[in-house]
């Protein structure tokens, strides 16, 4: 669905990505993992034409979207959920949903917002509250709902699980998997919580210092002990670790 080939991009004169190629197959969940500063967010920003693209090509369903203004990409069916500031804190939940569906007609947006409150019941409860007053988990749900408002063909998700309590992060991951399975949306997800993301993902790319170090099956990457321990901080041979993780999840309470 989305093909990025030989992409070099960055901010201003600073080059972050070097000759990068990735492919996002239709109706699959593609995961991009990697250490901090690898250029994962820059990749999404380059697709959205927020970062500066120096060379390379970005194709959406075989037509180039390189250089198209950000606000027109929403009409092409791409929906982008940024890592930071992914809701409008000073608008109500309702206004947030309507803004996310800005290019829909009024009645369409209304129907769609209704639909979202059914998918995410938590939003219905707070529909007239300012988004800034929601808890971290609720905000993330709202951000996903806002992404879905646009009837997207392709969703770009940037580190959805950042600074969420583990149990909430787990719930967010389940939602992502559900979007692929039930709604058939193509997803390109950048994730810090590498282990969980690789478990639910189909294809994976390991990005290090602006270059692809691994590409292929997502769960297979988990069986590359060297890459995992070096770049992702996942230690093998440790059922102990797993237990620990579970216990943390049990104790985890919702953050605010």
């Amino acid at each position, binding site marked *: 669905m989305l093909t990025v080939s030989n992409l070099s991009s960055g901010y*201003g004169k600073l080059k972050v990505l070097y000759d990068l190629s990735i492919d996002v197959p239709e109706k699959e969940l593609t995961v991009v993992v990697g250490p901090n500063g690898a250029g994962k967010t820059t990749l999404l920003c380059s697709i*959205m034409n*927020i970062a500066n693209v120096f060379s390379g090509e970005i194709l959406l369903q075989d037509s180039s979207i390189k250089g198209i*203004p*950000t*606000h*027109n*990409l*929403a*009409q092409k069916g791409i*929906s*982008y959920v*940024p890592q930071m*500031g*992914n*809701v*409008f*804190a*000073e*608008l109500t939940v309702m*206004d947030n949903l*309507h*803004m*996310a*569906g*800005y*290019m829909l007609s*009024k009645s369409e947006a209304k129907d769609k917002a209704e639909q979202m409150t059914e998918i995410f019941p938590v939003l219905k409860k707070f529909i007239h509250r300012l988004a800034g007053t929601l808890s971290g988990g609720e905000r993330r749900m709202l951000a996903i709902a*806002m992404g879905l408002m*646009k009837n997207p063909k392709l969703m770009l998700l940037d580190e959805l699980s950042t600074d969420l309590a583990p149990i909430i992060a787990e719930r967010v991951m389940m939602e992502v998997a559900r979007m692929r399975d039930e709604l058939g949306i193509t997803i390109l997800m950048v994730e810090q919580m590498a282990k969980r993301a690789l478990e639910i993902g189909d294809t994976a790319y390991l990005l290090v210092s602006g270059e692809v170090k691994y590409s292929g099956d997502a769960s297979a990457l988990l069986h590359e002990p060297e890459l995992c321990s070096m770049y992702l901080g996942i230690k093998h041979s440790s059922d102990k670790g797993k237990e620990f993780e579970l216990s943390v999840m049990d104790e985890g309470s919702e953050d605010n």
Partner: protein
Amino acid sequence: MAPWLSSGLVYASGLALTAGSVTLLYIVTRTFNFAVASMATIGFYTVYTGVTLFGGLPYQYYPFAFIVGSITGFICYYGLNRPLLRRQAIETTLMMSTLGYDLILLSMIQMYADFLTHTYKIFPRRVTMSLFDFELFGDRAAAFILPVIAIGFLTILHIFLTKTKFGVAMRATIENPILAGASGINSDRVYLVSWIIGGGMAALGGSFMAMAMTGTPVMGMYTIPLMFAGAILGGLGSIYGGILGGLVIGLTEYAGVFLLSQQFGPWVLGYRMGIPLFIMAATLLVFPRGLSGIPLLKIIKNFAEQKRGARA
């Protein structure tokens, strides 16, 4: 009404609009608009031209002042601000560019004043606009009409920003341009509309202020520190903050001059500009982010807690 209050109200409602214009353009485009000075003067000259050449009351020419101001804002956006925003210029560059635009506008105002003198044999360099006003309830009508117009304008602006789709989109863009862009909102159009509204507001504010002071080609240039002071006092966070800041600056100037000159004699009049600037400096020293930096919610919360503590 006491004379200082009626003049103060007229002046302060004008200052509130100009300070609101400065704040609006700053929060939308990061541009500290120096051209607000000449935009205000242009608003005044539009009204003056209408009144002297076509007769009638100043109030009926306010819509024209708004439109002329909007046009100057429109030109500034397309000619200057847009290319610079695309280049991601820094704040100081944006500020300097509007200064350049302001000086060109100023030279055009001066030439226009010369032209009026030469062609119509009128004297546009020292104008007392309040002579064109009428009397209402034993006081100048402007003291009642202008605050009402200002409040009406702000109500419309508020409804526009909260109830219409494009208005909400403007607020969304102000808060988070990237997310707004990704949602399909064309930020270019948002910037354009804010320049049009900002230019119109500045011109309207200038034509208000001319009802309380002598209208000259440099009136905007002399009062621009006060417009900025109002915007800064308001905290540069929300348009309402800027409007409030302008109002406070304008009223304290008149009230302060009145009180101090009664106390110390008329020589205080010469230093009138110092009063609002002193208030701005004092506020900034305590709250470096202006009125909007005052943690009102926190104060209320603390107060409530103290009360609860006292009861327990």
